[in-house]
């Protein structure tokens, strides 16, 4: 049995507690939270051992692994302490708010040979896993553009007193919502080399952005648009969608289905017809041993357990999560952005070398000279 400890009993934490407790190879040894009230009820009714000091929990409970589900600003310190105690670590997303710290933790986990995983659960949604399999087989040919979207109803009025509404604590739509879309882009297409045209707007929140838009640039010349908005009430729950355009067709993926349009049929280990085909969640979803809100949450914890048993590598590691953090950081730096006045364009003579086509023109001109 793998002895697990859990810190943080918010929405994800409670869900992790249930999943860890139900896993046949995991023994949930103890939980830790700052609310004594919640701990009291859980200890009374589930018999689990509780702590309000996580260091004490690590010290006393002979744990094999730790699951960190606290607000993001606590992640780095807790993950470091766990690694220093030689524990395998599963940390909620986003991984770390500071890139240097994040890199240090990637290195530390590597040096200590500990399993390290981050809760980007969309990687475990059947339709996205299937999309990855198809894209790796190049069914779309060369992908030249993508759109990554995340919408949902989190902040719908000017209120909110939790850490998600605080920039300092790692709140905001960029860390909370856009991060999922960014991680999926990294998984499906690769990490962008640059970002631009970043918009971080407030709709209702005082301290954090509620909507995020950006252009992504990839090293092979492909581009992407990122759109995230957590103040969208038209969505019943979080909805994440990635749409890709390639030289051989189009693919749109969300948690329910993977819709593909191919210019030319693909034959081989993966066969797909010309025109439309759809992979539904019912085709690509394997049952789990215990289900709560979605197979992906169980599957990621199961992967963590199997990785500890040496049977696999986590598909969302500290290193891949740090890639998502890097994109986020680049977006924060780029956010003030450069704008070009529309009105002034008609008042000034046209300058050459503006924008992408401008630079292409310039390059062409230079090579012609």
């Amino acid at each position, binding site marked *: 049995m793998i002895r697990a400890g859990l810190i943080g*009993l*918010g*929405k994800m934490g*409670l*869900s992790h*507690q*249930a*999943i860890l*407790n*139900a896993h046949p190879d995991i023994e949930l040894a103890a939980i830790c939270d700052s*609310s*004594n*009230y*919640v701990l*009291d*009820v*859980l200890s*009374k*009714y*589930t*018999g*689990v051992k509780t702590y309000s000091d996580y260091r004490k929990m690590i010290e006393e409970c002979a744990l094999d692994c730790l699951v960190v589900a606290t607000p993001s600003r606590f992640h780095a310190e807790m993950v470091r302490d766990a690694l220093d105690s030689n524990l395998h670590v599963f940390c909620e997303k986003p991984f770390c708010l500071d890139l240097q710290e994040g890199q240090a933790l990637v290195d530390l986990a590597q040096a200590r040979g500990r399993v390290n995983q981050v809760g980007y659960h969309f990687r475990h949604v059947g339709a996205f896993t299937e999309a990855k399999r198809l894209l790796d087989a190049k069914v779309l040919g060369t992908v030249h553009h993508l759109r990554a979207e995340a919408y949902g*109803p*989190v*902040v719908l009025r000017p*209120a*909110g*007193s*939790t850490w*998600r509404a605080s920039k300092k604590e790692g709140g905001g739509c960029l860390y909370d919502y856009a991060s999922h879309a960014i991680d999926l882009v990294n998984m499906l297409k690769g990490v962008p080399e640059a970002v631009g045209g970043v918009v971080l707007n407030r709709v209702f929140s005082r301290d954090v952005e509620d909507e995020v838009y950006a252009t992504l640039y990839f090293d092979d010349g492909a581009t992407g648009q990122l759109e995230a908005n957590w103040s969208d009430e038209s969505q*019943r*729950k979080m*909805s994440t*969608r990635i749409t890709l355009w390639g030289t051989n067709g189009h693919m749109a993926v*969300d*948690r*329910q*289905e993977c819709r593909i349009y191919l210019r030319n049929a693909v034959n081989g280990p993966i066969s797909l017809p010309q025109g439309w085909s759809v992979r*539904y*969640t*019912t*085709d690509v*979803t394997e*049952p*789990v*041993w*215990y*289900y*709560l*809100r979605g*197979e992906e949450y169980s599957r990621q914890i199961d992967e963590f357990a199997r990785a500890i048993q040496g049977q696999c590598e986590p598909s969302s590691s500290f290193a891949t999560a740090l890639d998502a953090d890097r994109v986020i950081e680049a977006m924060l730096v780029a956010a003030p952005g450069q704008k070009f006045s529309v009105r002034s364009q008609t008042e000034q003579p046209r300058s050459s070398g503006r924008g992408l086509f401008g630079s292409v023109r310039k390059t062409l001109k230079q090579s012609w000279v």
Partner: protein
Amino acid sequence: MQRILFGDNQFFGVNHMSEEKARAQSMRFQRTEAIIEVLDAAYDEGIRVFMCTTHERVREICDHVRANPTRYEGFEFYPCMPYAHKYANAVTEHGLLGALKTYMPEQGMFDAMVKGGMSLAKKEVEGIAQLLIDAEMKMFAGLKTPVVFLQNVVTDLLLGLGFKDAFRMFADHVTRRYGAEPGFITMNLPMLLDALDDVGIDNPIVCSNINKIGFRMSGGLDIYEHCIATRRFRPIAMSVFASGAIPAREALDYVCAQPQIESIVFGASSRQNIAQTKRLIDELSTSISMATRTTHARENLLQVGL
């Protein structure tokens, strides 16, 4: 319990197959009249039970049924509580305690308990649970609610946590206060049956996915079939078509061939679909004689080597 129960997923934008279809449905049913038209069609086809979440909009449907007692004679509601997204979104926005506070009818009492850092006795936790149940049941006042369900997200969360006493609290309150039978919706049938056994809930009504392809049947198809054939409980099959992945006749044939399954819940948006599904269930439920059905179940058992 009635054999055929009419579900409500289609009215509230829940579709496990396609987000686009879910959106189209939530657009079509944003007017309550549109929901009532479909319910009327179901009633006229002989369906007498609406198994529905305690979604805010169900309140309007309740009002309508209350106002037209002759039109809906013999019509029953099987409430499923709570509408979990309401709570989940509130937890994200206000934290766990904040969310609970928002939905407690007597805020003052809860504030006092939390602020006082009071350690809660069992009686008080049970009291909170009862208040939450009563708040959800309010909209059904004066209507027939012979079975009241605990919704799957909550059932399964409590199950995973090992918070089994909550099932007992729910069952006791629903029975005593509403004269109703408690029901449990779950995605984890085998695990839940053990837990209900542990807290002494005998022959429970349990609603779970039961479909030929094993979609969202945690632990797998074989274990489900074994549980249905051998364990003492009253199964209701939901998601029998696996969101449309299985053709109707094939899907219902699979479910109707298991004689222990008492009821089938399904959702549909058109009179034609309702009529067709009802006809198929009626036909398949009677065409397979008891004897064949028992043999069938035995064969299933042999096949899975149990």
